């Protein structure tokens, strides 16, 4: 009796899984496997793929553009991850405290995140304009000379980073805020009775108890940042002189613009391995110890 029940349950479980599983297999697993497979072929989209072994990978590793794009991607990640995690955490703490208009602020920090990538990119492109942009107008108040933000090899990437932080911070704030609200209030009460001030409570209660949230936010952020494409593409076009071209842009250009599909797939395979490394690190870090309140 128990056995049949179990069997029925398993069948039922698979049935429930089927609708999702079907689409997942069709639109994720199949394209993924095929993409990996095509990395070993020369293919111009229209003709029949021609097997060339590891040649795509060899070309990739000997092409400066690939290494430059990889570095720009890493550089963007290094510039975006720390502020997005740290500022996200601090603002979440502030938004959790009893300040006036807290609803207004919470909404205010989240609203940029719901805007589309095109909207925020074009908006910041206007604001970073050398002659007419509000950023330079603002800086000129402090006597800082005009900077040609998006067309300067040094400033282009930081400008995109700034826009990205403004745009995506809200998501991290939400993650932190909901985690902070799960910390039982009694902990703070006990600390208050022992005479702890707000700073001590933040350092000794809030921060350590959010350990798994820190890891989650950090890893998610690394994964998002590595995939950078849209903002850069719209704001700088990868320029000036290719100084902001990222890996995803390089994959897009070689595949869809120059019809070198196999080469683009090989590129994507390397990119996947990098992401896989990050994901494994996350699993390792998170599984160490869960938090208990």
């Amino acid at each position: 009796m128990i056995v049949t029940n179990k069997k029925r349950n398993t069948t039922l479980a698979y049935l429930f899984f089927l609708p999702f599983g079907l689409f997942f297999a069709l639109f994720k697993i199949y394209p993924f496997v095929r993409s990996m497979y095509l990395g070993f072929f020369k293919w111009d989209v229209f003709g029949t793929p021609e097997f060339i072994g590891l040649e795509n990978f060899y070309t990739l590793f000997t092409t400066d553009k690939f290494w430059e794009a990889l570095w720009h991607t890493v550089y963007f990640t290094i510039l975006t991850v720390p502020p997005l995690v740290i500022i996200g955490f601090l603002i979440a703490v502030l938004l959790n405290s009893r300040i006036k208009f807290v609803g207004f602020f919470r909404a205010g920090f989240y609203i940029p995140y719901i805007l589309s990538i095109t909207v925020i990119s074009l908006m910041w492109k206007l604001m970073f304009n050398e002659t007419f942009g509000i950023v330079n107008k603002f800086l000129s108040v402090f006597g800082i000379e005009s900077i040609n933000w998006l067309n300067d090899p040094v400033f282009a990437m930081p400008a995109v980073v700034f826009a990205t932080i403004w745009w995506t911070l809200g998501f991290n704030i939400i993650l932190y805020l909901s985690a902070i609200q799960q910390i039982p209030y009694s902990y703070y009460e006990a600390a208050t009775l022992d005479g702890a001030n707000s700073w001590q409570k933040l350092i000794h209660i809030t921060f350590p108890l959010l350990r798994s949230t820190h890891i989650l936010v950090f890893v998610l952020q690394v994964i998002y940042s590595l995939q950078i494409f849209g903002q850069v593409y719209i704001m700088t076009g990868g320029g000036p002189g290719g100084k902001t071209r990222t890996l995803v842009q390089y994959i897009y250009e070689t595949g869809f613009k120059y019809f070198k599909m196999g080469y683009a797939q090989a590129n994507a395979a390397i990119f996947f391995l990098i992401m896989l490394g990050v994901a494994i690190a996350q699993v390792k870090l998170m599984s160490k110890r869960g938090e208990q309140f």
Partner: protein
Amino acid sequence: MKKFVVLLIVLSVVFFGTLSAKNTEITFWTLFSGGEGHIMTDFVDNFNESHPDITVKAQKIDWLEYYNKLLTGLISGQPPDVAIMHLSVLPDYASKGVLTPVKDYVPKAFLDEYLPNIIKRAYYDDELVALPLDTHPLVFYYNKKVIENAGLVDENGNPKVPGTWDEYLEFGKEIKTTTDDYGASLDKFGMLGERWFIALYNQLGGSFYDEKAGKVIIDKELAEEVYSIINASYKDEMTPVTDYDGGEALFVNDRAAYHLNGVWAMAVYPDTEGLDFGVSMVPAVEGADPYTWGDSHSIIFPKSPNQDKDKVEAAVTFAKWIIENSYEWAKAGHLPVVKDVLESEEFQSLPMRENYMEAASYAVLAPSVIGWSEFREEMWELCQKLIIGDLTEEEAAEELVDKAESILE
């Protein structure tokens, strides 16, 4: 009675069947928006009204996504019957055998009307695979207010417009020193590294296609000379590094005197409030013909599994009709490429066209080679590296020669 009903049904099926068969429906993809989009929509409406036997269903696709969609359509066997394609990228598609050759569908007299420099590029491997609709060359805009502000006027009080690149550099620098405005502005991508480059390279006597070698070869010395003219224009802050929108904003807001842009800007500038501008052919190298870069919107007929002779015929009829009426299209700034229309009163009466219509004959289109889409982006990037000081003129020229060799077939 029963027999009668059956007969009636059969008859009606036959009758309505032939009725609908007589009307050929064709799909048409365009990438035009704004002023161009409106003209194209009117074209389609008017054509549908005047041709009861053909129904054109137009679909507008955002130009950023246009070629991706077209590519997907071609791969999946569901392309439109008619579509727009720039002649500069035609070889990349024609070489894959996805375009229908249409020579047998077009009368020879119609083809003879075309400007030779344009129709030449509609052929691939001796097959006619596109019908050019227009050419949109690079031209030279000047902002009268900025130039007058700098005191650069001739004896008649007209703002000075450079006829040569030497004058261009001289005037531009003078404007930058006497006023706070820039001497010139232009987009740092296609306009700079590809269009301006092609204009200068051809004015200096260069040509891309080497008949003897049967492929594209870039002359290093000439490329270096081109780069030295371009580089000089970015010295002393005469020209800022900007993208397309930024360069245009400087020009229309009276902050830049000269402006290199395509003729399509004529769809916007005449109606821009407060802008007092003129347009001319691009300056020339001393003693040279005013060659300029040009591309062309052409009409193509993608191959598809359910294509038949009727559809191709209908599609070509539609394309011919648009081209014959392209004086309407010229309102967006583009220049017609068939002599009938160029000489027509409708076209000639459009404002300022006489100042730059000659550019149509001096327009140099990208060479018909596979890989141009990739090579031209290398041109953009090399030139950007030049003007931000990453590469010297010689290094940039050297790299360009190498890229041409490794990318172009």
